[in-house]
């Protein structure tokens, strides 16, 4: 039987260039860099990066993909998982506080709200990168993570992921009626594991 696990992480330092890229700045200007640094300093202690995940066998059953915890029909995911015997399904979040900050600055400084938005995006992506890199080993490579809603992978898969991983209880991530995750800075995805040849 597959066990679901929970992990907490320490994130690497903030990459200001990425924050600005997510905030709509194609280049790093001194004024924007200063603003992003100010925001990053203010948000230094607010992130609580957590992940819950489980590994499941993957196989094709007719035209459907059996992910071990759910069956889906998705050509795009099928292609992504080609050659994988198993996949890790995970949900990651950096917590609620960044959402509160974005909302607060939405009222008093919209420019900062956009930067905090970018900062949150950078943090959650950094968390996912860290986690996915951890999945790799001498014998295994991890395929690029693939989320519900990408390509033809139905968003409805979110329900199966959340039920299987028990995300609300494990990491405090919840699904809203549009199948989006709260906190907003969260990601759920499937990562195929492939033997190295």
């Amino acid at each position, binding site marked *: 039987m597959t066990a679901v696990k929970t992990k907490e992480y320490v994130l690497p330092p903030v990459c200001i260039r990425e924050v600005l890229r997510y905030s709509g700045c194609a280049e790093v200007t001194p004024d924007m860099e200063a603003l992003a640094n100010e925001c990053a300093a203010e948000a230094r202690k607010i992130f609580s990066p957590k992940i819950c995940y489980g590994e499941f066998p993957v196989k094709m059953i007719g035209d459907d993909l059996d992910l071990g915890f759910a069956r889906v029909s998705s050509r795009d995911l099928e292609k992504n998982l080609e050659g994988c015997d198993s996949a890790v399904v995970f949900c990651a979040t950096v917590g*609620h506080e960044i959402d509160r900050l974005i909302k*607060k600055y939405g*009222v008093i400084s919209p420019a900062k709200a956009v930067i905090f938005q970018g900062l949150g995006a950078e943090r959650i992506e950094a968390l996912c990168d860290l986690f996915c890199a951890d999945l790799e080993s001498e014998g295994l490579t991890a395929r690029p993570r693939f989320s519900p809603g990408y390509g033809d992978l139905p968003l409805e898969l979110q329900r199966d992921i959340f039920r299987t991983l028990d995300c*609300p209880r494990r990491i405090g991530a919840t699904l809203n009626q549009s199948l989006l995750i709260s906190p907003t800075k969260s990601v759920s995805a499937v990562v195929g594991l492939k033997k190295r040849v």
Partner: protein
Amino acid sequence: MDIKQYIKEKFLLLDGGMGTLLQSAGLTPGEYPEKWNITRPEIIKKIHGDYLAAGSRVISANTFGANCLKFDCDELEQIIKAAMKNARAAIAECGDKEDRFVALDIGPTGKLLRPLGDFDFENAVEVFAKTVRLGAKYGADLIILETFSDSYETKAAVLAVKENCDLPLIVTNAYGSDGKLMTGATPAAMVAMLEGLRVDAIGANCSLGPKQLRGVVEELLLNASVPVVLQPNAGLPRVESGKTVYDVDSEEFSSDMLDFAKMGVRVLGGCCGTTPEYIEKTARKLVGLVPLPLSEKNITCVSSYTHALRFDKQPILIGERINPTGKKRFKQALMENDIDYILGEGINQQEKGVHILDVNVGLPDIDEPSMLCRAVTELQAVTDLPLQIDTSNTCAMERALRLYNGKAMINSVSGKAESMDAVFPLAAKYGGLIVALTLDENGIPETAEGRVEIARKILARASEYGIRAKDIIFDTLAMTVSADNKAAIATLGALRTIKNELGCHTSLGVSNVSFGLPHREVINSTFFALALENGLSAAIMNPYSADMMKTYYAFRALGGMDDNCADFIEFAAALPDEKAQATAAQTVPEENYASELQKAIIKGLRDRSSELCRALLEKTAPLDVVQNEVIPALDVVGQGFEAKKVYLPQLLMSADAAKAAFEEVKSFMLRDGSEKVSKFPVVIATVKGDIHDIGKNIVKLLLENYGFEVIDLGRDVPPENVVAAVLESKAPLAGLSALMTTTVPAMEETIKQLRASAPDCKIIVGGAVLTREYADKIGADYYAKDAMEAVRYADSLK
């Protein structure tokens, strides 16, 4: 024995983990354990039986996730019925049946409540209520709410219990390794809220092992007057060859639990990873130990969703600025439903250092209950300060107290019978710290003794509702000293007596004292100092008043409340240097003001823009300032943005600076009584199901900059609300945003309804997933790829 009586006399032993045992019996991830009540009753009964044999007095029925979000009504009823039956059967089969209780066990819904999430508070109450009614129907002896990691959802569940049964209620929350709930509450904050809601026992469960919960338990014991509950995990989980194992064994666990029992914990059990063996060892170690007596903590406090604020030695500042009385600009914001203005007042007062925000949105022409609820809900999304709910409208008071996430301050009750009859039942139900005015049917007594007499009457009446003296704070009413030169003396005298003889805390609206006098600040701040010296606990005051803040910091420094005068020094360092300011203003030559304002806007300097705009308004007509200064400056930035030379955050900094200038224009015109500057109203909303509103907010800001009156309906807005707002405001333009493909159908539906009811209204759409083609397909008039395009389109409609 009645369980409440049992807890008063003895340790109460609960059971341990259920989920872990079910997993080892074959429950797979994603399978609902509650279904096993029906499909595998023998396993459930066996687990209950093992816990009873181990010594558990309370067994929790297997109903953790039994709610109507997971199961339909019939199935839910069958599950709860079966769960109760299994628990009862286990008791019937155990040797010693005396003093064994069955708890209806309720866990969180897995949904996040508004304003952070999209689940409505009252919906949550209703979901829990259905489970509670079934539990009561099928014979539960008590209810345990457990593993809640959000204070707000906890409150919804408690209300559901209180409103649907009379069963004893135990509440335990899941605290993280930082000692707080996932949504931020400390144990002290939870105690404040839950004791206010009259929960019978309060505690911690799940998430961590006993040792990691030590800090949480200590804080609970320090604050709670009711029994404290502890159900930790068997330490932290790790996976060994596909199986989850925990790192604290039964021996270590039971020793830790014994320590906690000696510290004062009265209700003990286990959570994930604990088994009957853990409970049995704990039971054995407790034999012969006498529980510490329960003690009344007598703490006066309020709380928010993050922290409890104690009324103690340190004076408390209550910001008075969220109140329309005498504030034209605030009234206008209320009339226009401009919630952001109100939120801004909240955040700004917090930055000035207040501890509590008074919230008063009463105006004759508005729907006060709705507005107060909206203000209270939205304020809690942007500030963690406790709120003081300030209204004389009982209906508004009840709805706001119900929705408040914490223990609110209630402003106010008086010694009039009618007032006490209205306010005390609300405080008894929802909890709260009540501000009591020392006046009654005969008015305000002139003497201090008269006011103290009323205070005694209020205390006596409150106790009939089970409200303790610690939850009442007296306002001895600052009267105008220019009308009666003994007025301040009477107020101060009453203050002193109430503090010393009745042992109660006090609060004052300080600024009333100076009505009709010149230089009111001097009188106010001196009176404030005198009141503090006479024992004042809290002041409702204007934190933008430098004199008041000076008095506050100086008083703390002089009164030995500010170590090394550190706070005072920090405060003083931030005080503006008056001389330097005067010269700075003079260095800008007068004839250059115009271009200076434009420069300030282009550079995104908010404060400078206000300052320059204010100066400019002295000699230029407001509309000219907008047309010749603000708009051209914005255009420069807007064109830069369109040419990709200016980036989004830079555009927003300029927009924000322009908004600050525009605020100056608005207030000037309000004072001046001149006509509105707005072009025409635009209704904007993020469509139903979508909670991403940053793009919509950017469009709003820019539209406002360009002089449109924006009616912002917020996010997750049902189509009919958009239609109603368009019809009411006669807006010729409505803007809709959607971020996700899944919410585009809601946008299409909104457009359909708008076309049917308001065919003349143009519709502009935007959002990450939209394209021009898609916008055409769903029948929008225009697709704007960014905020500047939205402005250009709106301008083209003039």
